[in-house]
């Protein structure tokens, strides 16, 4: 029972981070700032949801697979963020200034 509450907490918090990521994508002014919002909040959101789900699964194999999925998304997210940022700069996109 108590595990259910904890895992529900993690999943709901994760969903909140996904909302933050989407809002950041819609509200932030340029590519670089949107990259910030996307990579950070999405990875945290997915991580929290995966922790919440890992508390519920019955075999360690499934838990390990969930962790592996998170690891892949983390790797891909960070790598792609850096690639897009560096290409944006090479193509001459100026960062937004206040």
């Amino acid at each position: 029972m108590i595990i259910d509450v904890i895992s529900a907490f993690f999943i709901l918090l994760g969903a909140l981070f996904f909302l933050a990521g989407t809002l950041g994508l819609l509200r932030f002014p340029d590519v670089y700032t949107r990259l910030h919002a996307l990579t950070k909040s999405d990875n945290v959101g997915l991580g929290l949801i995966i922790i919440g789900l890992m508390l519920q699964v019955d075999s360690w194999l499934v838990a390990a697979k969930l962790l592996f999925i998170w690891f892949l998304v983390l790797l891909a997210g960070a790598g792609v963020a850096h690639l897009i940022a560096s290409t944006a700069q090479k193509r001459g996109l100026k960062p937004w200034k206040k």
Partner: protein
Amino acid sequence: MNTLYLAVALFLLLTLIAGMWRILHGPTPADRMLAAQLFGTTAVACLLLLSQALEQPALRDIALVFALLAAVTAIAFVKRAWLKKSDES
């Protein structure tokens, strides 16, 4: 518990649809690509929740493929499709 999983999956679908605004309105190609990236990550979370709620372990494998593919399309985009500045203006 299952109701919670499904409700959160529905919520994620809604944020995903909201993120589509960025694909439609750009303004730069990178912004559209980023939105597609977000689409991938959100769909991974959505699939994992569905897999738990509907007790279909196969969905985890699909989530795995989604996680890998997001990187493939983004790299194809950065390496090939992003037009050089000199071509654009």
